[in-house]
Structures are given as structure tokens and as C-alpha cells.
């Protein structure tokens, strides 16, 4: 079976580079996550259906996902596996990731909209991140269950907001960059690296630029809400900084 998908430009080097072994990190009806190669940090490539949230490291296919095999390869122009059936996924095109742009913080609108949303993280940990210390970042890294722990989502939201609002994220950036690979899951570390580069799921943009997080809050169980909480923290800090 040959499936032509649309890949994020962030995985172009993986797809078009030399073939590497990949293992399945997780699979569901709308997503297959592959850990690619043995490099450090560990790269992750996601295969998603068109209705899934567009992670920057994804290949999106307009078809039901095939069942993933125990062993796959990524490179030489495709994702391939031979069992349980022969599957080849190629990129018909590459799309640039959603990227945060400079924006004015809108803490008031964000706060009103996400007031009651469950972020999956204790709020005192989030508030502590407001001090922008390495310790606060370490306390959130990898905190929570699942492939993308909620603590990481808060950090990602904060990093994206800080970039957009021109806020100095202090030691938080450096701590995430240096320790995410070891401190959390491979997929979450991958998404944090995207956040450090200003790359995100597109649902972040209306929240960040216009204070409208409705679409973001629908992402995942708590992922969207945790991202939004991180954004809100960055917005509040930058408004306070501007006022002072």
C-alpha cells in the first residue's frame, strides 16, 4: 500500500535523508508516533489523519491509518514497514509549520476563556514558573501521564508566549533545551524543541494573537488547556513587565 501524505517541513530531513530504523512509540486511530534512529536527542515523526491536530513533526494522510508494524524505516524518501502489511508513506508536499509571530499579550481575554479549564497540572507549579527559574522549569518537565505530559504543555505554551510577546524566558529556555531529552518522553521533548523554535500546532495562534483559545482548548484531553495556561502565564508576566 502506497500512501501519499503531506509532511511538515520539520521532518523533510528525516524523510529524504538516509534510511534509519524507527520504532513505534504509540498508535491510535488518528496517530502513529515513530521514534527515528538512535541519535541524541531522539527524533520523533508522527503519522496523522487529516482531522488530527497538526503537530509540526507530522506526515498527514487523507486516509485511514494503516496498522503500524513492529519495525519501520524512515528515510530514502519514505516511511516504510513490511509487517503486518507492506506500507510506504511518501510526502507529496511539505508544509511549513505554524509559527508564532510577534503579538500583543491579551491576558484578560485568555484568563476569562480558560478560567475553568482543567490543565492537568497543579496551579502552584504553574505560578512558580512565573519566577522563570531553572528549578521551576525542572518541576514541570515530564510532569503528568501520557505521551505529552501536561507539565511539558505548560512549558511549551509559556515558551511560545514568551517568544511572541517578547518576554525574556530566562533560564527556562536553557533548562528545557538542555534537559528535555532526558526528563520527558521522546514525543514531548520533540514538541518542546519545536516550541523553543517558535513552532506549534496552529490552534495556538488565535489564542496567542487574539486571545481566542476556543480551538486550542479542544486539543487533546488537557493538552490544549495546559498550553493555553502557559500562554496565559507569559501574557500576564509580559503585561506586568510592560506596566512596570
Amino acid at each position, binding site marked *: 500500500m502506497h500512501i501519499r501524505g503531506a509532511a511538515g517541513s520539520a521532518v523533510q530531513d528525516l524523510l529524504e535523508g538516509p534510511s534509519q530504523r524507527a520504532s513505534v512509540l504509540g498508535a491510535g486511530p488518528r496517530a502513529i508516533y515513530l521514534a527515528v534512529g538512535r541519535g541524541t536527542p531522539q527524533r520523533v515523526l508522527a503519522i496523522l489523519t487529516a482531522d488530527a491536530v497538526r503537530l509540526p513533526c507530522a506526515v498527514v494522510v487523507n486516509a485511514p491509518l494503516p496498522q503500524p508494524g513492529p519495525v519501520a524505516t524512515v528515510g530514502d524518501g519514505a516511511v516504510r514497514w513490511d509487517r503486518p502489511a507492506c506500507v510506504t508513506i511518501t510526502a507529496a*508536499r511539505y508544509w511549513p509549520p505554524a509559527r508564532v509571530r510577534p503579538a500583543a499579550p491579551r491576558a484578560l481575554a485568555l484568563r476569562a476563556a480558560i478560567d475553568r479549564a482543567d490543565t492537568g497540572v497543579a496551579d502552584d507549579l504553574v505560578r512558580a514558573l512565573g519566577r522563570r527559574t531553572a528549578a521551576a522549569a525542572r518541576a514541570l518537565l515530564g510532569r503528568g501521564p501520557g505521551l505529552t505530559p501536561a507539565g511539558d504543555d505548560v512549558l511549551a505554551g509559556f515558551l511560545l508566549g514568551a517568544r511572541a510577546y517578547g518576554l525574556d524566558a530566562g533560564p527556562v529556555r536553557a533548562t528545557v533545551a538542555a534537559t528535555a531529552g532526558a526528563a520527558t518522553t521522546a514525543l514531548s521533548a520533540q514538541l518542546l524543541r519545536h516550541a523553543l523554535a517558535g513552532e506549534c500546532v496552529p490552534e495556538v495562534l488565535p489564542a496567542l494573537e487574539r486571545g481566542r483559545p476556543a480551538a486550542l482548548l479542544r486539543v487533546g484531553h488537557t493538552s490544549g488547556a495546559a498550553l493555553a495556561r502557559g500562554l496565559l502565564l507569559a501574557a500576564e508576566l509580559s503585561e506586568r513587565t510592560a506596566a512596570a
Partner: protein
Amino acid sequence: MPVEHVETRAGSYADSVTLMQVSTRVTAAAGVERAMVAMGTALNLDLLTGMGFALPPGTGPNDLVVAVRAEDEAALALALETVAGALAARPVTGSFATSPPRTVGAALRERDRAIALVSVPGPHAFAEAMDALDADTDVMIFSDNVPVEQEIRLKDVAAERGLLVLGPDCGTAVVAGIGLGFSHTLRPGPVGIVAASGTGAQQVLCLLDAAGVGVSAALGVGGRDLSAAVGARSTLAAMSALDSDPGTDLIVVISKPPAAAVAEAVRAHAATLGTPVRLALLGPGNPDLTAATEQVLTDLGVAVPDWPALPGRPPAGDGTALVGLFSGGTLCDEAMLIAADRLGPIASNIPLRPEDRTDPRAPWDGRHVMIDFGDDELTAGRPHPMIDPSLRTERLAAAGADPRTRVVLLDVVLGHGAHPDPAGELAPVIAALDGPAVVACVVGAERDPQDRRAQMRVLHEAGAHVFTSNAAAARYACDLIEAR
């Protein structure tokens, strides 16, 4: 005993490309001499009359005309069955299935983050485009023949809502790596393009592709955007959007000759942006598209490659005239600018000077001439010549057989939306010429479905001189005229 059947069906619309495909299928059916299935636009009625069909009085643009001449009744019956089958190809849905949406507005009710691509006949494009804007969605209007006041209204509404209107008459865009309209699959990269010219954008995109440089987006704004009336509304908005995109390092603005005041406004706006802007505004004394692309490469610190080219057969006979037959308006413009400088006035249906206007359907008077087959008056109710090259191919055969012709200059545009094998259509006609030389510019990217290299080779083997730079092709054509 040949039989003829002419039938008009009110209220059964199908798009011109679909009808062309139906016509092709019916014409190919056994025992059919001539056939055309088309909407009854003035241009199509002319063609039908020219094919010898007698049309019922009162046939209008909303009528579907089925005209078939077959060798006998049995062949006619078979042909009409083919028409019925081809037109009924719309998928039949079971009663529990959802039907496709009937308006852009209905489609966008269940869609976030989309672009609407509108290619309905021009008089009806406004409604669909406004649906998109009402759903806070950007729109690309591929349709031509949209009145300018409607264009202005759409662009003003878009400005209020922070949206972009690409077009009307926007032939080319690249968004999220998707080539929309007549376009190409391109690698992602740092160049953002704003183009008031579809084929101009295609030329620049394909040259960048040949040089290994990708694009963040190519936003077509429609051929009229830089007119005094429209005042660069979409150009300025698209420049600002690209300026705020962190993935765009350099903005290139491509246009046919713009109104002077508007060109000034674009320059002034460019000066306010944080991202560097390279203007490629075609006009006398300005750099051609290839030169502009080379400047972009230099800006990016990328080496300028040798643009691929293949040699062809020299002209024979006593002809003196240059005949340019273009599917791309901007490519025609660029060739005229280059040729006018060297050879003097060029007659055209899109002339550089009003006094050089010629009716593309009138008999040729032997002057240097360049025809844009994609111009509105030659596309009403018909597919664009990049999709249906038949009008141009006929003209190529005629010009090639005319002893006054010395050189025929062509553009051959590849990519999504274009004919699957344009070189294959042209090659037999080119190979059959014994007098004039043929100079062809192939505009195509590495990953285009037609395979650019193979297309170039087919034209070369038919005897054409093949270029990938339209400016280089035009200069070479002038060389051949002057060498006489």
C-alpha cells in the same frame, strides 16, 4: 448518410474543463465526425458555427449545447449515450449519505483553517468568494471575467477582516506547499512571493526551483491588483502578511506593467517592512523575470546556475516575422518587452501600446505579433489554453505554414492544473513545419507531474529550441529574426 444533432439544455451547467473532456470522449467515439459539448457562450457559439452546426435561435450562456455530427443514426445514438454517461458521472449518493455542499459557505461551516478556491464562471464568483470572507476564510479566485468593482468590494471586505483575496484571475498560488491553480510542487524555503501575474510567478518559482531555492508561500493577487482602480489592495496586504511570517526571509513582488502611482505605493509600503523586498515589476527599462530571479538568488547568497536549454532547428525560407503564441499573459508581456526593444512594434491582443492592438481572431497582416491565448476574451466559457491547447495548436499550424513566418515563439507551462502532456500535443505540429524555427520556453519544476526534462526532450527532438528562461527564449527568437 451523415446525421447531425444539435440540442440545447437549459439549466444544466457543467464546468468548461469537464465539458471539454466530454467533448473529447464523444469526438473519439466510433462514427462521430465532429462533436462539441459546451455552454453557449458567444465564443463557443462562434466555434460551433465554425464547425458547421446550425444553432437554435436564442441559445445563451446558461444553455448546455450538445452538437454531434455522426456518420449514421446508430453512431449518433451511441454518441449521445456517451454524452449522457459522461455528464452523469457525478457520484450518486445513497439516501443516508451526506450530499456535497452546494455553496462555499455551506462547505466552510465544518472547516477551520481552509482556503476557498473559486473557479466558477466570473459573473458568479462574487457570491462564492463573499461566502469565504463571511466565514473568515481567505479566498483564491481563479475565475476571470469578474467586474472590477466586485473585485474592489471583495478586497475591501477582506481588509476589514484581516483576510486575503487572491485574484480574481489569480492563476497561481502556493500555500502550505500546495500548488493551487496552475502551479507547482515546490520545496519549502525562505522566499515569499506576491504576484499580480500567474505565469510570471510560475516562471520565477520554476527558476528558483532549478536553483534549489524553495518558497514559504506564493500569493497571487490577480492581474488587475496593481491597476490604478484596485490600487494594490491585495498586494499590500499580502506583503504585510509575509512580512509577519517568521518563515519568510525575502519577499518578491512580481507584476505585469503596473500603474505608475501604484508601483510607487508598493515601493513605499516595501520600505516600511522589516523583511527585505525585491520588486520584479515588468516594464520598459526594468529587469526581466530571469534577471530579477538572479538578483533574488544573489540576495540569498545562492550561486546563479546555467538555466537549462536545448538547441533546435534553424529557420528556413524567406519569412521575416516573429509570431509569439502564449498561454501565459506575463510571459507574453515579457517577450514583447524584449522583442519591441529589438524589432520594433509588436502587434498583440494585449499590446504594450494601444495602437498595436490586433484582433486575435482576424486574419494576420504579416507583422510581428504575439497573442495571449489566456486573455479573457479567448477564454469565456472555454478552458484556459494551458488545459486545452487546441486553439493555440491550430494557430501554430497556421502560422507555421505561412511563408511570412520566420520564428514561432511559444511558452509551454507545466505543473498542476496544466495539460498532462503539452509537449506531446505540440511536437507533431512542430515536427511537421518545414520553414519557421520554433523557440519554446518550458516553465516547470523538478517535481511537476509532467516531468520537465522529458517535456524538454520531446520538444527538442521535434526540432524546437528549448529554454527554461522565457527572457532567454525571447532574446534567442530575436537573434534568429535579426540574423536573416
